[in-house]
């Protein structure tokens, strides 16, 4: 049973869709879905006034958001189960504090994707904005678990304060990737922005290219990392083909940031000095 919500264009304000939990919505009738309240700015609006509701008994159980989806914020927020498909761009705070289930974004996602995420899987075909997998404002810990797989580039402060989980970026990542990272694993197939690994305490940042290593990192190679191969194989099976060319390749390994505990690691395949 799938439910499709086709959002009409013309929303100048963000539409807060945090109440649309896939496992709940797919169990409701069309009439019940249309009566659900959504916050648009400071107003509460009936869902039926913002989008068309379609129900289909075919295929696996999922909630599909389509049409003008870029204005939708907090999609899949605190999601606990089910499948959510955003058939376009996703707005800000998608998958914030997500606990389980799967979110698929067919376009790009805005800032704060998977913020303080605890579990589940988010797939984004395009790019993601800033603070992907980072923590809630004012909190030290970022993403606490789960997996984020991104087919494009990431903005700044990717995985900042990350505590656990896996983030994969097929393209480049912006400045201060893995800043204040506590644990977990971040893979960036392309290059890292400046300041990456700043104040990193633990965890692993694996990247294709780095041209500006912070002075708080020390060489700690050679890096024939079996654990990296385990991740590469897992990601290859998850459809992250671009990293297959790293399999069996030598890499450079650095540990730091010595300004913190120095137990974090950056592994780079092409180091540009």
């Amino acid at each position: 049973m799938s439910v499709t919500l086709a959002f009409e264009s013309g929303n100048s304000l963000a539409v807060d869709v945090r109440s649309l939990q896939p496992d709940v919505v797919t169990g409701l009738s069309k009439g019940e879905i249309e009566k659900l309240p959504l916050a648009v700015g400071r107003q509460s609006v009936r869902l039926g006034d913002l989008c068309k509701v379609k129900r289909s008994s075919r295929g696996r159980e999922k909630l599909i958001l389509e049409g003008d989806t870029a204005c939708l914020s907090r999609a899949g927020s605190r999601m606990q189960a089910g499948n959510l498909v955003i058939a376009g761009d996703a707005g800000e705070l998608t998958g914030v504090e997500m606990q389980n289930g799967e979110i698929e974004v067919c376009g790009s996602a805005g800032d704060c994707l998977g913020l303080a995420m605890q579990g589940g899987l988010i797939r984004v075909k395009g790019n993601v904005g800033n603070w992907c997998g980072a923590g809630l404002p004012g909190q030290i810990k970022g993403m606490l678990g789960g997996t984020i797989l991104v087919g494009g580039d990431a903005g700044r402060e990717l995985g900042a304060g990350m505590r656990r989980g896996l983030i994969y970026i097929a393209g480049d990542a912006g400045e201060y990737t893995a800043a204040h990272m506590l644990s977990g694993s971040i893979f960036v197939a392309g290059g890292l922005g400046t300041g990456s690994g700043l104040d990193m305490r633990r965890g692993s940042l694996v990247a294709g290219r780095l041209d500006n290593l912070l002075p708080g990192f020390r060489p700690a190679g050679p890096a024939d990392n079996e654990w990296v191969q385990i991740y590469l194989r897992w990601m290859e099976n998850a459809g992250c083909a671009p990293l297959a060319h790293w399999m069996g390749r030598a890499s450079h390994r650095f540990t730091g940031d010595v300004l913190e505990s120095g137990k974090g690691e950056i592994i780079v395949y092409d180091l540009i000095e």
Partner: protein
Amino acid sequence: MRIHNVLIDNTFAEAFPMWVSRLIITADTPRLAFQAAQVAAGMAISIIGCGCESGLEGEIPPGETPDGRPGHILLLFSYSPEKLEEHLFQRIGQAVLPSATSACFNGLKAEKMARVGGKLRYFADGFQSSKLLDGIRYWRLPVADGEFVVEESFGLGQGVGGGNLILIGSNRSSALEAAEAAAEAIRTTHGAIAPFPGGVCRSPSKPGSKYKNVRASTNAVFCPTLRSRVETQLSADAEAAYELVIDGLTETIVRQAMAAAILAACRPGVLRITAGNYGGTLGPYHLYLHKILQEAGF
């Protein structure tokens, strides 16, 4: 029943439940992986004297191992989950960990798990770190050629031990040749092992002894040099017998391995194939030779 003029006794092998673990041991080359797995299998011949039985299930191609390197699968059997956990800890810690470039992964999904990597990590003296991927925790222990990666937990499943065959030959070389062919057939059965040296046992045993503290003793009825002193199982033209012991992940696998072994052993110089049992009092699995051959389509 006769196959290629070899008499197959209408009897059964008596097998019993055992706890089993399945280890995937990888390394940079197939030789290094084999070396590590072979040493980890070590002296685990008979549950009676070794506390566990183990053997190599076979090679596993790089495409099927967790880290994409060549590997070997090791099966380890014991009589209790506690004893099996103890052997896992010792054998992975003392044999796999020191082997060059090695890593060790769980190859058996089971409800009961033994925490092995989670204990071995203390060898790293505080420098250990871990990775959690898809619900599986991998420990990374710094060693002098890089890192030893080992899974946190290993599955403890219910397997079957004690499948057996006894091959009686007209002379020692014919009997041994047939026994080695049978052992090779067991090795090609996935999920089965023959734990004795080369898969072949020259000392079939019976439980107990005339001596108080001896748990098992030579099975005199199969010893050619005792045929004049005991009620022998050897005919006048038989000069040697070899036993094959078979452990497997399931009863079906043990049955398949036994059938393959019998068919491989039926060759010139072999007079008779029989099996050891204790009248049905030892274990719940009664593996009738004629029946397993019928199941194998013979």
